[in-house]
């Protein structure tokens, strides 16, 4: 068969809309699609089940097994819910992620305003640089960042780590925020400007109230990304009492000799819960699905 463009295919068909394609063959295809989709879904589910089952099983090993009898219970959660194991790392993670997400969102909003509202000849190169930096692998710059932090005496400080994490989130946040801001019509502000309001006043009183939904999307998105981030705090923070949940999870190895799989699973569940909750909130906000199509096209 020769290659046909979609247009060619369209051109060769009659315009009448009959439904002869909905015969028994199509019925088989639908059943098949459902079965195959379910099987793939199961393959995704099985590894995940281990965490959930093991978390409630005080005798948990690496095998997937339903906790039964005396081994079923909240023993694992009771064991890990202590200040050293769970509360402090979670708190550290919260400080780190809320701090850097907040900085990122404020700085990104400030930057997005002139980028969205005014024309200068520096705007385009700046936006291109921002877009370019969203693609840079942060993993690769961790070695020089470590060097920089050693020289600036910022190693093992929450402040330095927060500032760096905020910066890594900035390019994408600026990009998203500017796109959301472009959606707010400029006419309202123009009226305010002629009345003598300056741009920061219009940003605060006119633009921001209209783009809270967009901003909260950027905020949650940034937070989820940071909560799961392992490499950055792993490299920049050293003291055990400053480590966030993503890194302190490693203390389950070695500390007690053999690994307590049930406790590791319980801890993983606790550590995962916040992002799952936030994701549910986020997808509700966006009407059930991410609009990736729009995001990708810029």
């Amino acid at each position: 068969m020769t290659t046909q463009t979609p247009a060619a295919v369209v051109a060769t068909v009659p315009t009448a809309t009959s439904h002869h394609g909905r015969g028994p063959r199509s019925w088989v295809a639908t059943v098949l699609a459902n079965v195959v989709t379910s099987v793939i879904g199961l393959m995704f589910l099985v590894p995940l089940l281990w965490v959930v089952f093991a978390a409630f099983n005080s005798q948990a090993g690496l095998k997937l097994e339903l906790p039964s009898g005396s081994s079923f219970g909240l023993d694992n959660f009771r064991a890990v819910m202590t200040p050293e194991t769970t509360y402090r790392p979670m708190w550290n993670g919260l400080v780190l992620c809320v701090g850097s997400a907040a900085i990122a969102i404020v700085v990104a909003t400030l930057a997005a305003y002139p980028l969205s509202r005014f024309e200068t000849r520096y705007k385009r190169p700046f936006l291109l640089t921002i877009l370019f930096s969203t693609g840079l692998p942060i993993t690769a710059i961790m070695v020089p960042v470590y060097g920089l932090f050693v020289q600036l005496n910022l190693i093992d400080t929450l402040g330095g780590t927060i500032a760096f994490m905020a910066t890594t989130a900035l390019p994408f946040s600026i990009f998203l925020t500017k796109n959301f801001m472009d959606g707010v019509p400029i006419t309202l502000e123009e009226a305010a400007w002629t009345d003598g309001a300056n741009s920061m006043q219009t940003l605060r009183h006119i633009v921001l109230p209209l783009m809270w939904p967009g901003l909260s999307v950027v905020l949650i998105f940034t937070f989820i990304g940071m909560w799961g981030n392992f490499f950055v705090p792993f490299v920049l923070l050293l003291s055990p009492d400053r480590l966030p949940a993503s890194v302190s999870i490693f203390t389950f190895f070695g500390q007690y000799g053999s690994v307590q799989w049930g406790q590791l699973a319980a801890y993983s569940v606790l550590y995962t819960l916040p992002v799952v909750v936030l994701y549910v909130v986020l997808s509700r906000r966006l009407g059930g699905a991410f609009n990736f199509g729009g995001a990708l096209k810029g």
Partner: protein
Amino acid sequence: MATVTRPGAPEGIDLRRRTHPVKVDIARALPLTPAIVLLLVFLAGPILWCVYAAFTNIALTGAGSGETKFVGLDNFRAAFSSDAFANSVVLTLVFTFLSAVVGQNLLGLALALLQKRSAKVVRTLVGITVIGAWVIPEVVAGYVWYAFLAKDGTFNEILARFGLGQNWLYTLPIIAVSLANVWRGTAFSMLVYNAALSEIPAEIEEAAEMDGATGWRRLRYVTVPMIKRTVTTNLMLITLQTLSVFGLIYTMTKGGPGTKSQTLPLYMYEQAFSFSQIGYGTAIALVLLAVGAVFSILYMRLLRED
């Protein structure tokens, strides 16, 4: 600094295009300052330092820690003639190809296509599961797959019924981490393709169907050509993400056994932090950055053509 002058444009209608003095422009650019400062200090700074350090013998302990001096291309020469570096380049390529280009991309497309034909219950439940695997933190995903593939893990339990089973993390570590990365990353491709497929006009699909183009042929000649741009964009983005995967592999195998799953980020980490060879480590980082930069530029070109 002022923008295009448009004489005769009614005042107050098109404020953005009005000429204004330099002072106004500077005042308007002021809110950009915090962003520029942060980006310069924590992003541009480290990258420039990386370019500098890659040509020095800077080290934190051991040889070279006393005084730092320029060594020209020595780090790169050492890297390109080192077996360990070659090993990690090959492993990175295998990992990226298997888990991103083939795994996430094809499975994501397959899921998006299948979901279109599935019942709503199936579609929603499978969607939630796949996205669930994507949302959980990468370290947890690492443990999940460690447990799944370990010697006495679930996967071997299933295989034991067929008389198979081995310690996958020892025998085929790079395949093991690739599988885990497919599991973790497929949701992204699935969501991207879901969005793209929903934009194909129903008439075109129906027309193709009536023309007798069913199954593979419709996919090959109608659907895929219509989402070609999305496929390229998606490939670019997941390749970039996969190139810099660290936590997942570190949790599952720490790059081992030996160096059998040591991709470039893990090799870089080992050289720079475990062996304190910052100069050599930054040279590897620079190679990674360069690869990332190439993909980033290609991605921008694609966006511009839109």
